[in-house]
């Protein structure tokens, strides 16, 4: 391995030549420190993977922290409560872990380990809280959810102490779907149109609209309800109805859809649109045939996410939908209940059976949001222009057909003019 031992070093120093070793010992006489003592064999430092010391330090710290806290709680101090137990053992864990790591590491490593421990625990708290909320809602609502009548009946004839085998939230489910439909009928076209406008038509108006959309995101949802209440109901004397609720929800969803769609449209590669312009197509053709199809999956995701947000809004609905326990299919007349509103009303009534039904309604709502969300991820989640394997196969097949078509034409002696070629769609 060492070059020093060679009497005549080779002209090209080998790759592992150490600095300080002369390449030409005849010309420059440099004193090379003699190595009388044999160098200890070098071992490779392990820089990835999990080391045994780390595992031991971690496990030791966990055990020590839990044991110390248990001792404190049961024997030494008059502490009680599970929250305090967790907090104290966590603090002890971090301290002991730092100490253990400090035994065989330097200061920066200790700091790194403490930071890692804190970041992991913070993420764990957030994830745990989400899982806990979802499971809690499901468990608490299970008493009502397990009865089939919960999905097939409304609640108009039920007395407060009727068992859970009677009555359900069908009216709220229907109301939610109708209101969501109205909201999306307003918000999806408008949101997408404004996103296209922001992306395609520059100018003074563009900047103004962008500012307003940002301001609209800041609009608290209760104010959307208040606005609809002030206009449709107080001025145009519309009754409290599903239509008003749909309008209020639509108002809150426009800015969400618009911002999400705008981001997706901006990601459409400039090369694609420029190619379209270079081929001589106009603005509208480019938007319709290039920009929008390229961003299709992202736009769908934007709309579905907007729907998922709108479906859970309670405050606007609370102000303008009215409360009823009857099934109402007509959004134009009569109050219409919806799942979030029903959950709110039932739980705040405080009666045990109603609380169960309220949590059941919340669980159904959560399931709806989950379905919307998963479908959004299934449709979208790909960047613009990224195709599914099926789309890719279809595109390749079209392309191959075109190729054979051209070949046939050339054989037939036709010159293929560019304007005659079919674009590969």
């Amino acid at each position, binding site marked *: 391995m060492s070059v020093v031992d060679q009497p005549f070093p080779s002209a090209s120093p080998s790759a592992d030549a150490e600095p300080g070793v002369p390449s030409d010992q005849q010309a420059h006489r440099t004193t090379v420190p003699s190595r009388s003592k044999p160098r200890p064999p070098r071992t490779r430092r392990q820089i990835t993977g999990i080391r045994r010391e780390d595992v031991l330090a971690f496990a030791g710290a966990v055990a020590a922290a839990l044991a110390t806290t248990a001792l404190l709680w049961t024997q030494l101090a008059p502490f009680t409560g599970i929250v305090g137990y967790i907090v104290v053992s966590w603090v002890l864990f971090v301290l002991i872990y730092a100490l253990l790591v400090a035994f065989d590491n330097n200061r920066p490593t200790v700091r790194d380990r403490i930071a890692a421990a804190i970041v992991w625990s913070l*993420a764990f708290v957030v994830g745990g809280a989400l899982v806990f909320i979802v499971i809690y809602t499901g468990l608490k609502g299970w008493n009502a959810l397990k009865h089939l009548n919960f999905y097939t009946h409304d609640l108009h004839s039920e007395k407060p102490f009727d068992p859970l085998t009677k009555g359900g939230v069908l009216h709220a489910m229907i109301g939610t779907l109708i209101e969501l439909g109205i909201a999306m009928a307003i918000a999806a076209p408008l949101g997408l149109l404004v996103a296209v406008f922001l992306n395609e038509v520059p100018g003074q108006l563009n900047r103004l609209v962008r500012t307003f959309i940002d301001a609209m995101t800041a609009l608290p949802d209760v104010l959307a309800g208040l606005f609809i209440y002030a206009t449709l109901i107080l001025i145009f004397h519309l009754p409290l109805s599903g239509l008003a609720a749909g309008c209020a929800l639509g108002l809150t969803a426009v800015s969400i859809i618009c911002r999400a769609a705008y981001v997706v449209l901006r990601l459409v590669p400039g090369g694609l649109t420029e190619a379209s312009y270079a081929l001589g197509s106009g603005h*509208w053709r480019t938007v319709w045939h290039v920009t929008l199809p390229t961003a299709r999956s992202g736009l769908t995701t934007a709309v579905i996410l907007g729907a998922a947000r709108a479906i859970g809004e309670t405050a606007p609905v609370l102000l303008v939908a009215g409360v009823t326990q009857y099934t109402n299919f007509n959004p134009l007349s009569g109050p219409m209940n919806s799942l979030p509103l029903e959950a709110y009303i039932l739980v705040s009534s405080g009666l045990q059976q109603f609380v169960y039904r309220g949590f059941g309604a919340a669980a159904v709502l959560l399931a709806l949001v989950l379905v919307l969300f998963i479908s959004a991820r299934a449709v979208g989640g790909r960047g613009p222009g990224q195709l599914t394997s099926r789309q890719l196969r279809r595109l390749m097949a079209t392309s191959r057909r075109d190729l054979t078509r051209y070949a046939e034409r050339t054989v037939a002696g036709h010159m293929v003019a560019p304007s005659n070629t079919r674009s590969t769609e």
Partner: protein
Amino acid sequence: MRSGVPSVAQGRKGAVPRKLTYRLSASDRAFRAIARAGGVVVLVLLGLVGAFLFYRASQALHKAGWSFLTTQTWNPNGGGFGIAAVVVGTVLIALVAVVVAAPLAIGTALFISEYSPRSVQRFLVSVIDLMAAVPSVVFGLWGFELLQWRINSVARWINDWFGWIPLFKVTGITPHDTQPTATAYTSSTFAAGLVVALMITPIACSIMREAFSQAPAGEREGAYALGATRWGMIRAVVLPFGAGAMIGGIMLGLGRALGETIAVLLIIAPVFKIQLHILQQGTSSISALIAGHYAEATPFEVSALMAAGLALFALTLLVNFIAAVIVSRSRSGAVSEA
């Protein structure tokens, strides 16, 4: 799309740059007109919201005058009404929420972008997005039924040991009381703030994660090459890069927290006086005031509620505007040289 044609004049002296004009076809003109119309509709809608709120509120504002900002009670039909108490309540709830949510959001964002294994990263991002879409009423029910009772011990502990700080004082309860009443600490600013914190954490987190994951790879590797540990790299590269997004995300969360209605309405017990003790039962917020009072309101009372709504809108608008400025001024999203 229509700019960026290099001028010919740069190359040849004296040559007049060619005039490039284009004529829009009928369909293009129609397209632009429709797109503009969409923009105008949004302008008009939001303008109407603002104008209506202002118009309907003017009646109440006119009657109350400046005392609207300083009065604590809410009694529009007779006597005074004002937003001093509700604004303080709103801001305190939002501040509690932000103080709790900021570390959670930063930690989770760092975890997803820096610590979690690559293979689950996409899944975790989806989970956070899903958490942002969980309806606020679900959080509210959870806080109402469970959390505000469970955190009683925490609130009692804070009161016992930090009760001398005015913010944590609870009047009417002796410290170190071994048998406190069960409802002593429920329906408080603290409980509402905690629930709202969980609601805004995913929103702030997803903005931060986005910025963190865009921290330039070259600088990351540079830090590692200089011998930094992972935390050293995060402190030297990721956090400075994402600083703007961190502040912006927190401000955006603050905006959401200020306007949150249903969870707050479920938890708090309305009290119309300035409540600075965050552990004490009873507080109020603008959105909860509106949602709780509109139903049996007289026309004048509706006007007063609109005025309160206007104040809330102004507050959230201000916060969001500051957030937008901070995010756009920061380096986040910028590509590093080389």
